[in-house]
């Protein structure tokens, strides 16, 4: 079974800083990691490979330094890694990203299953997986917590707000995976060393014979008008003492807020 896992390199910190001029994320001094739930997608792929054989190919679109994320995926045990890096892809929204990833999958050729993380911690849209399935015209299963493959069919258990749902789809299909699906493995040191030396295939849009108008800013109907971090909440106040003292002070504090009048 040939599995493709789509990953994204994201800034590690939760304290995102934004350049007020350009509305772009400030990436300097911020470590980059594999989007955490994408690691669950890689783990799911590796487990399926262990059960069924085949290959795991990890792909991403991003600047040249996204290679680092691919090397981490190789260290976890992926067989191959491909980077789509093209200046014309800059500014891609989810529509444009799903286009480019779909073109990558087409070029790879025989693919039985495509796995993605549920969503990325930076953009948080969760749209690329479903978009990719639409672009490729194949079934999609989102929010999968369990996966199994039998007789060319995939069975997946989805986590929804109030219930689980078990679906069966024909392969090839796109599946997005949730964090609870598994516990991503730590890479073995042999693989860490191997991944450091591994050749990362790098493609441009021209290699894909893709339409540059559908990628990057040109292919992205979504425009980010402004990005800003939420206002920092002031620290709360801790009231200590006996129950009576705490109740007294709390009552006084509520009175001072003048909530009833407000």
């Amino acid at each position, binding site marked *: 079974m040939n599995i493709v896992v789509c990953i994204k390199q994201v800034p590690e910190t939760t304290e995102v800083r934004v350049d007020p001029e350009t509305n772009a994320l400030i990436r300097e001094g911020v470590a980059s990691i594999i989007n955490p739930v994408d690691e669950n997608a890689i783990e799911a792929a590796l487990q399926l490979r262990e059960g069924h054989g085949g290959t795991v190919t990890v792909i991403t679109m991003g600047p040249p330094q996204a290679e680092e994320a691919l090397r981490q995926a190789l*260290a976890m045990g992926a067989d191959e890694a491909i980077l789509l890096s093209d200046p014309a892809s800059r500014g891609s929204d989810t529509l444009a990203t799903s286009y480019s990833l779909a073109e990558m999958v087409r070029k790879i050729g025989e693919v039985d299953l495509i796995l993605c993380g549920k969503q990325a911690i930076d953009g948080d849209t969760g749209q690329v997986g479903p978009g990719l399935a639409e672009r490729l015209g194949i079934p999609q299963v989102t929010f999968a917590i369990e996966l199994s493959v039998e007789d060319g069919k995939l069975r997946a258990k989805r986590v929804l707000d109030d219930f689980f749902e078990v679906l069966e789809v024909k392969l090839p299909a796109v599946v997005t995976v949730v964090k609870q699906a598994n516990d991503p*493995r*730590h*890479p*073995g*040191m*042999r*693989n*860490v*060393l191997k991944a*450091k030396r591994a050749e990362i295939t790098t493609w441009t849009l021209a290699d894909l014979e893709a339409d540059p108008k559908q990628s990057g800013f040109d292919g992205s109907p979504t425009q980010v008008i402004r990005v800003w971090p939420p206002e920092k909440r002031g620290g709360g106040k801790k009231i200590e003492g006996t129950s009576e003292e705490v109740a007294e002070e709390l009552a006084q504090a509520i009175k001072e807020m003048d909530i009833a009048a407000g």
Partner: protein
Amino acid sequence: MDFTFTEDQTAILEAVKEFCEEDLAPKAQETDEAGVWPAENVKKLAELDLMGIPVPEEYGGLGMDFLTWSAVGEELSCSCTTTGAVYGAHVLAVVPIMMFGSDEQKQKYLKPLATGEKIGAFGLTEPGAGSDAAAVATKAELDGDHYVLNGSKIFISNGGEAELYVIITTTDPSRGARGMTAFIVEKGTPGFEFGKDEKKMAFPSLPNRELVFTDCRVPKENLLGRERGGFLVAMRTLGVGRIGMATGAVGVARAALEAAVPYTHQREQFGQPISNFQAIQFMVADMATEVDCARLLTWRAAWLKDQNKPFEKEAAMAKLYASEVAMRTTTKAVQIFGGYGYTREFPVERYMREAKLFEIVEGTSEVQRMVIANHVLRELNK
């Protein structure tokens, strides 16, 4: 002089740190208190290719050096002292087979040790042979194509859980150190049994067991090195073992320092964090300086070993200094925590109990001083 790690070493250390932070450290207290062999952690060490770091790739190892092995060991010991101790004891079987084993022995025994498929242990200490290692009384007598072992070993780390043992015996008691012979003995060999598991001041999850040999027949081909060459096998093994113990000591000392510093910022007395007080600052400064010194001594010894240069004196210095630093640093950490430090609410009391091990195991501080003095008195006698 170059104090930077190579790119490979850096990549390995980064991956190991992540594993330590995410998997080992959060469960370290639990691992200690369980009082049972940390099977899951040991399995992970194998999965992460950490059980044979200095072993050549052809024998299933990572083909890296002892410096890397030591730096990794410090991370393991710092985040989970018990797991670090298993790692340190395992290498005591790896090293002698790597250094003295025939190709057949390496294929058969070094490979599974290096991949972590099998765990190793080293049996030297006996009730009557502690600091005086040459007083080993476990006898091995040739009988046809087997040696017959009789006697017992005590305090053996990983004992009972390990599958492969390097055992130091005497084949000629009249010749003392020159009559000693090393063997590889597999768990399950008839006549090889496990006795008492010591209850200790610390490390309840690390077995230190008695090994009992009663007419235990070990095939001749399991003789390691030369007959009557066992003292050399033991000394070479302990040389590396001392770097390992120094590594473990640095790990526990660093754990104490890393636990104490955040506490000094958080704990307020007299209306301010205690980190403002010079009495605390001076303790922190000494702890940090000594941990650094201990680490540098340890890494120098490992580096010398990697360069195939003599390292016996330097390993003894590292082991002596690091173990005493571990004791001092953990004691200071308890002092900084005050009353809380004496409770089991915080890990520092455990670190203090654990640190004591390092001043005793694999050559007491006194033995290290003997080794160092022997070298220095000879070297500087001009």
